[in-house]
């Protein structure tokens, strides 16, 4: 049986997906957003990053502001009423 392996997103792709999920919510949003957040603990080849590096990249993700409104993921989730995402982020 052919094994399907999920391709690891680049940092920029992961941030874009993270922001999209915060904005759109929907079924499975919490799982997806958790998966992306956790993926920041490993590098492109799947190896665990140093603790300081993990902190730095997660901080960057949470502070990332979109171009249109300068909004973070928390702004987007709050603005669009996605309770589960807000609770996860906070």
């Amino acid at each position, binding site marked *: 049986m052919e094994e399907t392996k999920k391709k690891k997103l680049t940092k920029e792709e992961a941030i874009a997906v993270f922001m999209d999920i915060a904005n*759109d*919510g929907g079924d499975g949003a919490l799982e997806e957003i958790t998966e992306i*957040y956790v993926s920041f603990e490993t590098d492109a080849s799947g190896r665990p990053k140093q603790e300081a590096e993990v*902190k730095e990249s*997660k*901080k960057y993700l*949470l*502070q990332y*502001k979109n171009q*249109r*409104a*300068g*909004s*973070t993921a*928390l*702004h987007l*989730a*709050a*603005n*669009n*009423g*996605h*309770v589960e995402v*807000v*609770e*996860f*982020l*906070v």
Partner: protein
Amino acid sequence: MIEIDFPLLKEKLINLPNKFKFTPLMCVCFRGYLTKGGAKDAEVARIDIVNTLLDAGAETMYSTPDTKMTATHWAAYRKDAAVVNALLLKGANHFHFSHMNRLPIDVAGSSRAFDVVDEFLKNYYESVSINPNQVIHDSLPALQSAGNDDR
């Protein structure tokens, strides 16, 4: 996540203004619904998000520099009595004037949200009953500066 992973950054992240100077709390009070859902579907989610943000330390006194509107003004504008109540219980100011010299209760009145007006009056009455001097003392600076404006 912010609370667990970045406790020192929590206050900053929770109260970070965006390009329009809106904090997440202000975003949810101003809107709090996805366009395809619509405003009528927002109330349950809105109060849950507001409580989550308030518990995490969201600032109720913050107002945008241009309109001077607080989250309470926006909740009143949205006719959301539950959110107004939650904000007032967390110490939101009754006497913060917007750039149009409107108090949050004025906004509720002009939005014809009479249940929200009742919420303001009830909360104010309760706070005066508990500690009359404190409430009057807290409201004086705002009322005095509003009195100096040409209204």
